[in-house]
């Protein structure tokens, strides 16, 4: 279909993963951390699909995997938001730094 080497996709995914991880580490808003996690998950789907397309010509497991990842990711966002909402109700904040009563 094309002569794009697979490295391109993989490096793209790596960069995306790194950016996502950066977001996780740098952001203070719980929701933005979730956003960053979504980026990381997107990076993995790219990998999955790329590998499926290049190396798994019979089974395409990676594609299936990607579908599951997307599904789970969506569910996770929902679930996490529920918890964020509870925190917000209790503390009037969605900043993760403020949720640090449990430590040591």
């Amino acid at each position, binding site marked *: 279909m094309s002569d794009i080497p697979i490295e391109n996709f993989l490096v793209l995914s790596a960069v995306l993963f790194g950016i996502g991880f950066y977001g996780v*580490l740098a952001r203070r808003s719980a929701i933005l*951390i979730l956003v960053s996690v979504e980026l990381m998950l997107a990076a993995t789907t790219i990998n999955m699909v790329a590998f499926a397309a290049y190396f798994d010509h019979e089974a395409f497991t990676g594609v299936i995997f990607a579908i599951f990842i997307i599904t789970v990711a969506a569910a996770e966002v929902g679930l996490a938001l529920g918890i964020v909402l509870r925190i917000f109700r209790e503390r009037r904040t969605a900043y993760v*730094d403020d949720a640090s009563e449990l430590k*040591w």
Partner: protein
Amino acid sequence: MGMEQVWLLPAIPAALFALLALFNRAMPRGGDGLAILGMLAVVVLALFVTLDFQSSFVDGKFAPGAEHVYAFEWAKIGDSLLIEFSTYVDGITVLMLAVVSIVTLMVMLYSVGYMDGEPRYGWYFAVLSGFAAAMLMLVTSGNLLLLYLSWEAVGLASYLLIGFYWERQSAAEAAKKAFITTRIGDVGLLIGIILLWRGAGSFDIQEIIEVARGGGFDNFYLTVSMLFLFAGAAGKSAQFPLHVWLPDAMEGPTPVSALIHAATMVVAGVYLVARMMPVFDEVLIARDVVLYVGLTTAAMGATMGLVSSDIKRVLAYSTISQLGFMFVALGVGSVTAAMFHLFTHAFFKSLLFLGSGSVIHGTGVQLVEELGGLWRKLPATTLFFIVGSVALAGIVPLAGFWSKDEILVALQGGAPMPLFVILAATSLLTAIYTTRLVLLTFFGEPKDRHAYDHAHESPPPMLLPMLILTGLSLVAGFVAFEGVGKVLGFAGGIGNVVFTQGDKGHVFELHPDVAIGATALGLVGIVIGFVYWWGRAERAERARSWAPELHDLLVQRYYVDHLYQVTIDKVILGLATVVARFDRLVINDSGVDGTAQGIGFTGFRLKFLQTGRIPSYALAMALGVAVLAIVALGRT
């Protein structure tokens, strides 16, 4: 009944000890009668043993092979170690048996009067029996290990008896001191025994002697072994520098002093060296050490006895000094002289002790400064005491003369002249302090009227043993002569008795020069004593003020006790403090608690990594995975 049954001798008092120790409260008079009966039986049995031993005397010798008479395997490990009870009877043994059994019996009899009404009266007799058992076992033992065993047991008995009046702190301290000091010597003894075992492969004395004679030991090794062995003997026999315990041991009841600290236990060291003399003969350096130690002790003891004001302590110093004499004899290889002196000394010294006991019993005072003029009140005691003193001073024809003369003769023949001179001078000193003691105690003016007024003669149970011992002090010396010896049960004279091997048989003969000289010295000493201490003893006072430092040196016992005290306080206890501190601070607090605290503190620090903040948790994860990834790449 004969030599094979010699084990019965210790067995009887041992059984009595067990019986009396456990049940003395249930017996009439604490079971003293039983103890005395037992001892009487021992004396009789000892006589039988002696007779049996005599019967083996053939051609002026005792038959070899008749000696090793009984053995009982006690513990055994394969071929490598055999510990057995074995008895051995030879002339020395017989001599010792006689001394031990007779003196013990006398002392027991005496104690019936002396100890009457004491608390723990029954316990006293129990321990006396125990002591007798141990001492008899010591002298009949055929191997060094059994000897060591009984050696320790007599030490224990001595400890218990010195500390008999344990409510007195001084008695408790004296008992402790005696035990520890002798124990230090015993370390040497045990080391010596084991070293000999290591070389000879056996604890049996005769086998060791065989090996030593056959050159089975390295000379240096044997010297060291024998020196260790001698350390034990010196400790037990209160030889310099381990003599310090004996004067303090006078805290015990006086009969005990007579028995243990004059006649029997303290001569165990002499006995041991005499017993091992064939080995000492192989290593003359060790023998010389014995000689010099003995000489030093003899002189020191005599000088210290010169100034002591406690009647029993004077006798104790005298004992130390006389033991020194015996070691001098051993040091020149004359077992005969040593054993002879041991034999006679046992009688007159125990007599002296019993006499002093009689004084103490009668007056309740034992400082000579507070006594005086007692001859009017205690005539019998005075008489006995004087006989004993004369014997001690070495005046013809009392027991002490013969044996001391023998020692001087031996020294004259076997050692340089100066040594002889020193010993002779010591002999002079002996006469002086003896005279001093007698004069201050029994003559002159009573210094403490109260004590004097209440003084009374001792009861017959006390006088009887003293009488018997007085008789022995008068005649014991004559065993030296073959004829007399035979009558008394020592065939061939004492010289033959103590040398059972027969190759060094020694026939007693009087050396007129030495004999006359010694007697003269004794007489001179007595005269000097009279000059200084007769009446109010002003000359003695003057002499004291003439050389106060010297007097002080003697009163302070050459500062040996001080030296020990300082050593114990500063060095040993200092070391102990260091060890105790080291244990707490370094090992415990730093090593153990420190490790625990270190771990705990690490945990305390680590917990702050757990900040409670999600980003830092995520950072930890990121770093973790990054490290894993990087190391993974780096590995290939």
